[in-house]
Structures are given as structure tokens and as C-alpha cells.
């Protein structure tokens, strides 16, 4: 059996976000203390003796989350996905995480540059335990945050063509319009069934129309 050295562990988990006893922590490195025991150095808490049972990596599925610290004018809804590129980090970091907001699609219309969200502790916490507002609340927040997620699969966004409606979007594309919290028009018809299922599963009572 091969035991991993502090160097091995640092390469895997150093400079990335991990779960330590279930809490998101930024792990700086692993090193040996004066008793030759491996300790973990965190940025926010005191160093801890390495315990493989306490350390884990969040299991993240592709989808939306809301960035809780979004300033006014900055999109709240972002999608995260994994980058299958060659790198060593098991923990979450810039190298293996792709963040994208549906709002970015609008930037060309507005003649603006791309925006970016960097991986930090708040973002990772938001990804691990996403919080979604009710649809009505999300619509109210739109003027402030431009795009707000209502589930891991759907978000609402400001509409470039309509004075009262919001856009309904998936991480892939805009799929329809939200007339009101209880009235949605699905323009990408293949998603119709998915939206009906979403409404039924969450007891939202939405009237779904094919546009």
C-alpha cells in the first residue's frame, strides 16, 4: 500500500477549495509538523492534523447557482461545470471549474465586454448549497441583478424585446418568456415537457403555453 506524502496531498488539494468536516475551506498546503505528522494548512482556520476521513471534495453537478454577494448591476445567476483538462487539483479551483452567466449572451447586444466571476469561498459555498428565490422574488430582483436562477436548471433574465416579460433560460439557451410567475410561454418547444414537469414537481401551478 502506498501512503501519500504531504507533497502528494498538496498537489491534489493545495490551493483549492475542499470540504473539511463538511465545511468549505480553502486549503493552502499540506506539510509535516515537528512530530513528522502531516498537517493541513487552511486560510481561514488553524492548521489541522490530516485526517483522510475529514477531507473530501464537493460533488458538483452541472447547473445554475445564485452568487449571493453579487453587487447591484452584476448578474446573480451563474452556471458551473467541470473542466476536463489536464491539471492536478482535486479540490475546486479556477483550473478545473468553468463559470458562465446567461447574462453574458446579452453583452454583445449591449456592446460590452465579457464579465467573469472568480472562484472564491462564497462562490464555492453557493455552488455546494445553492439557494433559489421564489419566482416572484426572482422577477422583482431582475432590475437589480439582471439574471436570477430559480433552480439548477432554469433562470430568469431581462428581456431585450419586451417591456413586461422576462426571459426564461437554461444554462444552454433562452427557451421562453415569463409573463408572470404563473404564466410561462415556451418558445423552444422541445423543452415544453421539461417545464411542465418542473412546474408539477415543485407544485408551482404554472400555466405553460407553447409560443
Amino acid at each position, binding site marked *: 500500500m502506498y501512503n501519500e506524502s504531504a507533497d502528494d496531498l498538496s498537489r491534489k488539494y493545495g490551493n483549492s477549495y475542499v470540504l473539511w468536516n463538511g465545511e468549505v475551506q480553502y486549503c493552502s498546503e499540506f506539510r509535516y509538523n515537528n512530530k513528522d505528522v502531516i498537517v493541513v494548512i487552511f486560510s481561514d482556520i488553524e492548521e489541522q492534523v490530516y485526517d483522510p476521513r475529514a477531507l473530501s471534495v464537493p460533488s458538483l453537478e452541472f447547473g445554475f447557482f445564485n452568487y449571493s454577494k453579487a453587487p447591484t448591476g452584476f448578474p446573480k445567476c451563474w452556471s458551473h461545470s467541470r473542466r476536463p483538462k489536464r491539471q492536478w487539483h*482535486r479540490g475546486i479551483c479556477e483550473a478545473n471549474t468553468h463559470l458562465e452567466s446567461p447574462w453574458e449572451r446579452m453583452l454583445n447586444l449591449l456592446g460590452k465586454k465579457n464579465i467573469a466571476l472568480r472562484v472564491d469561498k462564497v462562490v464555492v459555498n453557493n455552488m455546494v448549497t445553492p439557494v433559489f428565490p421564489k419566482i416572484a422574488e426572482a422577477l422583482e430582483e431582475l432590475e437589480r441583478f439582471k439574471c436570477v436562477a430559480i433552480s439548477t436548471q432554469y433562470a430568469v433574465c431581462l428581456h431585450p424585446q419586451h417591456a413586461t416579460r422576462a426571459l426564461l433560460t437554461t444554462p444552454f439557451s433562452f427557451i421562453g418568456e415569463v409573463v408572470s410567475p404563473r404564466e410561462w410561454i415556451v418558445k423552444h418547444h422541445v423543452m415544453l415537457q421539461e417545464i411542465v414537469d418542473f412546474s408539477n414537481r415543485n407544485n408551482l401551478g404554472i400555466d405553460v403555453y407553447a409560443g
Partner: protein
Amino acid sequence: MPGEPSTVPSFLSNEALGGIVAVPPGSLTSGPPEQYYQLPSATASKISKKAKLVQTPFMERRINEVFRQNAIHLKTNEFHEEMVTLHKLDNATSFEFASPNSLVGIEVEVENIKRIDPNLILTWWVIEEDASLRNNGREFKTCPLPLKYVEPALTQLFNGLNDDRDFSNRTSVHVHQDVRSFSMENLFVLILTYMIIEPLMFRFADSSRRKSIYCVPMNSANTLLKMCKHTDLEQSLYNSVSSCEKYSALNLGPINTFGTLEYRHMSGTDNIPKLLVWISLINKLKIWAYRTSLEDMFRHVSTLNTSSAYREFINQIFGDKLTPLLDISNLPRDLEQGVYNAKNIAFVNKWHFELLNKTPAKDSTLMRVQKIPGISEATIIAYHGLAGISGMNITLDTSTDEVIRHQIVIIREREEEYRRYFKERFEKSSAKKLNLTLMYMDTICAV
């Protein structure tokens, strides 16, 4: 540095290829040819150029026409039979595959290697060092192997190693599946099907591999987002193959070089029955992709939403013998995300692209939040339109109103310069864009 190096599978190495030996497309289902075809690379290049002139619809074109692949050196059936007899592996030929002549390449990583039977390299295997392995680890790779010889090859490998070999969590088994004779349509059907059933594949191979950074599930990877960036499906498909990262669970990258799909799910193991079933599942997936038209696949994707439909779908792909070997205890939970992703990717969303190509309406919710005191709405709309069409990226999203105001002042001051620039840029390429930009300029400068 430790890590999984980007090594070329032995069956596609330069030595194996020799640069001049090619196998005609279509050999996949008919098994390896009896004779080799001498095809110098210069001739191959000419044929490839000619092939491009033929106006075959993209989705009907074969993978080996669309992507440039190396020629593959195949061993004859006689060779395989001789090896089976010579090494007394006759007993290890009981497992039946649906298409026994389909080709695969297998890569097996093992640690704690103390003894290697020298006969391995004389038959099907090539041995390589792998920097990601520890404790005297080795990687064993087969030549392109018809499925009917997989069992004897694996038996010979594991009989030829010391008993206390170790399959740590650093080790894995990768299977390359020959898809050179696939059409682009077949490939797309396979990708969509795989996307839907990916959780089942992981559950069979090893669920813990979902977290591995060397085997990222397609349904969690940013590859998905790349697949729907274009209005045309063909471009999306071409790009997703060309830009696929190596460490995807289903690695599309080798299509571009070897004409294979690489399945990286299986953790290191010497459990031959499990490996045979795994390869059989992969083989069934390929047969399904051959037999299913894109239209039928679209129909499947758009109608899959009940437990019974899921079960029937799995049964159609894997058949009565293999389906019971899969964990299908909670199909709705397992397949829903894949179906959702497949729906988003399979069908081009024209409405989305039309929406993003229209100038924003001045009273829209989007433009309301863009209002700047002191500047008319028409000017702001024209400004955004101008920036959008010319791709100038004038301001940052987080910029203040003052920045936009400042930019508008600059455009007004340097009106002639801007007009000249747009004329030069769009005069020849797009009269429509030229007219639009000049119209926006008129609005901005009409003070």
C-alpha cells in the same frame, strides 16, 4: 511530474502504423481484412482532397473523411488464432459479443508489478511506464483487437503478472472503440445516447470515478456548453470533437487522430467477466448508434419522460441479456439530467439565436436598466447597436454611466474617423452591416 501522460495507444504508435499501411473504411463490421492495402501517405492525401469535393451532406459523411486519421496496422485473424492456440487460451473464448469483429484497444494500468510474462509483448500487448502510477506501476496496451480475442488477451495478461499486483485508485482501464466507419450522424446519435445513459455507465464501472479528475462525466463538463454555441449542428459537433479535453469520461478527442472513442470510466481491475461485460455494453452502444437514425434519436430524446419509457429505451440499447446487469433501480433520477442536457443540445434553438440578433427594443426590460440621465434613449440604443455590430466592446459591463457618456462624446468628436472605419470594414463584406452602422452613427451624432 506525476500525472496521466498523453501517450499514444500502442496500436496507433508510429512503429505500428509504419506510415504506409491503411485499412479500408468499413472493415469495422466485417472484421479485419485478409490483406493489407498499400496506400502511401501522398496518395491518401490526394484521396482526402478529392473526397472533400464530393458534396455529401455533412451528417452522412464518414468520420474518416471529416477528421484526418492515421492509418492503422491490423494483425490478421490467422495471427490471433495462432496466438490463442500457441498460448493455450482456447478455454478463454466463451464470452459472446454482439459484433465479435468490432475493433477495440484496451489500456490496463496496474501497480506493484514484479513479474511480467515475456510472451505478452509477443502477442497482443505493449508495456509502457506511466508517470501517474506508483509502486512499480505499468500500463499494458493492446494492438487493435477484434472483440472475440479480448477474453484471451485479458486472460493472458492477468496470468502473466504476479498475483499480488495492485489496482489502487490511481489505476484504471480505458477502452478505445473503433468508430472510423461511423457517419457523423452515427456519432451524434452515440453522443446523445451516451449523455442520457452516462449515470448507468458510471454505476456499472465505478461510481467513485465520477469525482475523478481523469474521468469527468460529460453531463458535468463544460463540453456541453460548447456543443450549443452555434446555430448549425454540424459546426457544434465538429467543434466539440476537435476541442474535447482528454480527461472526459467519454473522450471524443481520439476521433480526430485515431478514429476511436475512449471510454475512461472503468477503475483498475483484473475482474475479467466485469471487463467483458463493460466492453460488451460499449459495443451495444455502438450497434445502437449504427442502427438508429438521427430522426429516431430525436424522437426518443423528445419523448423520454416516464419510467416505463426510460426502461424500454435502455432495453432497446442493451438488450435482454445486458440490461439486467445494469442498476436500473432508479431510472428517472439517473436519466433525467441526461435527457434534459440532450434535449438542449440535440435541437438547435433558433428562437434563441434570433433573439440575440435583434437590436434591443427601446422600451424592453433590458434597455430600461441601461438608461443614462442626459442622453436620449435613441442614442443609447444606437450606441449599443453600434458596439454590438462592430464588436468594439466599448465598455465593461460594470462600467458607470459616465463611461458610456464619455464614449458617446468620443464617437461624436471623431465622427468622420468612425464613419471611414466602418466603411472600410463593411463595404465589401456586408452592405447590411454598413447601412446599420451608418444609421447608428447618424442617430448618435444627430445633436
